[in-house]
């Protein structure tokens, strides 16, 4: 295992082509060094999930992802017995006249256990990255259950005993704030808020990910998208969308940002009819300011 220091983090991020800033770098470094879960909040499409992927790449390890949703329960998140397989085994054993003790010994072994993401992360033989995505979508009960797991990284299965993590996984939680997370969960995590990037940062992202785009146009695009986000839209364009837009501009052979080109491609950035209506009237002014 590599020694984790600030240089390792900043170089790792650079290698993974993740444009970042002091805040993100420090938070990631601390999460690794203090072995604490990292709770990332921020608007949709600002690169929250990406952090976990980059971390996995940086540590050259596996990324285990748990996507949260309403009604997510332990059976889906932690483990479940594979009933079908157990039944087949029972039927196969029936004619061999085995006693219950012998049967149950097999029936409740790891072979019949369906490991869900949380157990997988705990039982892994090396350090993995566990991404618990959109934790705000899960129910409060699940959050409480998660708290316990995050504090000591062990899972008790009555039939098997306690499984303890050999290496504590790196845990990244993301939230879109559709509901307030509990204080207890917040207290246990380091907190990172990733906002939309500033103009300069976004320009660098566009240049890195869409190298075919002319540098001047990339700067104009970054300024335009930034101005668009300030209009108070229902769904401001995300970084992913501005990258899509940059690619669209390349495909259409646009050499400078003008009103027609923007109008034709606005659908890539804005996905709500209201937002489009709101922005269309202001396109000319925004283009002028971005140029």
């Amino acid at each position, binding site marked *: 295992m590599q020694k984790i220091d600030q240089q390792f983090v900043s170089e790792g991020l650079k290698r993974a082509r993740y444009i970042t800033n002091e805040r993100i770098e420090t938070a990631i470094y601390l999460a690794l060094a203090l072995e604490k879960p990292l709770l990332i909040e921020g608007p949709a499409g600002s690169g929250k999930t990406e952090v976990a992927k980059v971390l996995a790449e940086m540590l050259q390890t596996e990324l285990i992802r748990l996507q949260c949703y309403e009604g997510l329960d332990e059976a889906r998140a932690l483990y479940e017995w594979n009933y079908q397989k157990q039944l087949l085994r029972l039927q196969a054993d029936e004619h061999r006249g085995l006693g219950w003790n012998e049967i149950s010994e097999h029936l409740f072994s790891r072979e019949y256990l369906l490991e869900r993401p949380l157990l997988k992360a705990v039982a892994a033989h090396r350090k993995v990255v566990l991404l618990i995505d959109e934790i705000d979508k899960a129910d409060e009960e699940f959050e409480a259950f998660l708290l316990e797991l995050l504090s000591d990284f062990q899972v008790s299965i009555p039939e098997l005993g306690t499984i303890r993590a050999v290496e504590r996984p790196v845990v990244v939680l993301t939230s879109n704030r559709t509901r307030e997370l509990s*204080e207890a969960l917040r207290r246990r995590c380091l907190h990172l808020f990733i906002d939309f990037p500033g103009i300069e940062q976004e320009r660098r992202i566009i240049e890195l990910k869409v190298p075919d785009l002319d540098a001047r146009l990339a700067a104009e695009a970054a300024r335009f998208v930034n101005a668009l986000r300030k209009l108070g839209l229902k769904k401001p364009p995300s970084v992913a969308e501005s990258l899509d837009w940059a690619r669209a501009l390349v495909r259409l052979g646009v050499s400078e940002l003008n009103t027609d080109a923007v109008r034709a491609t606005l659908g890539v950035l804005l996905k709500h009819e209201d937002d489009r209506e709101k922005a269309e009237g202001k396109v000319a002014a925004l283009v002028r300011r971005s140029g």
Partner: protein
Amino acid sequence: MSTLGEQLLHFVERLRAAGVRISVAETLDAMNAVALAGIEMARMREALSATLIKDEADHPVFDELFTAFFRPPGEKRDISRKRPGDRTSISPASARSPGESPETSQSPETPEPHRSDKPRKPGEERKSKTPAKERSAEDERTTPHSGEATGLRKEEPRAAGEEPTPGIEAGRIARLHAIERTPFARYSDLEYEQAREALGPLARRYRVRLGRRLRAAKAGRVDFRRTIRASIQRGGAFSDLRFRARRPRRVDLVVLADVSGSVRYSSTLMLELIAGALAHFRRVRSFVYVDRLAEADFEDGHLVTTPALDLYARSDFGRVLGELWERRGELLNRATVLVIMGDGRNNRRPARADLLREMARLCRAVVWLIPEEPERWGTGDSAIFQYAREISALLRSGNLREMEKALLEVA
């Protein structure tokens, strides 16, 4: 204990005094984090922010206090140019010159500090004309603290003429956070406009929460078909009961909002909030009143009443109740929840609480949202206690946050 440790403890104390909730464990985390990240200013700031600040809305307070507390010795900033009464004197204290403890005379309620918008000093980067609370944390971060960036790569200087980009989302959250907690009693047209702006995200959140609450209440009778089907997977054992999704128990909402001077802001905001969540109710009828009843509607975000109301008339809720009682056949039934927003101040006219009692018998529930401070309930011409006896619940809704919570109870 090291002097830096003491400094950090003081800093945590100051944050707590400003209303940020920080546990002992978090303080320990912060100390470990600083030990790891070092005392280079920008890194220490991020280390402390990651460990101490768990809600983005607290960031403006943190930024303000951090800048004041750990100011590098070279940088002299005139912090006395703050909002009057904000805090008066803070002695220079920095990680470099520990032992010098900060004298504070800070009032505990500084929910939303403003940084001074003074002109840029020579050699000091970053100052924009945007209001402090809109200025981003990122912007703050890229500030090279004079003489402090030891050995670390500096951020590229901004191109001349390019405005610093504020953290758009962070600014929005901070504004929403501040206005949510402003009591309606302190509203002027300015706050009302801010609240209207914040209402978009608030309405979305309300819809999501309301929808979730309704879905959570759905679990109904056992669904045999689906249970048997599920049991096939278990070799016929009914180990996994499936439940029939209960049809969402949507309510008929009749809203009655006082739009006379004292409570007009809270009433309009409530009507607008409900108007944004119509899909979650079976039927919504909105009425406003001063001394008479009028149907309310929103056209382009403006409240329109039919017939027109004299907003300067003297409130008379008794008469309004009378008018509603006459229309009971059309409006009130067993599925109706009657929501009333008002302060119950009736100018000493007949309260007609008896009518409210009769209505409560007809409806599923009558809920009264009151924007007034509890100390003022029942004082002067307030008849609120007479009404309170006849209704299902009297819910305080002194600011947007309380109002949202109260409205969630209604559904």
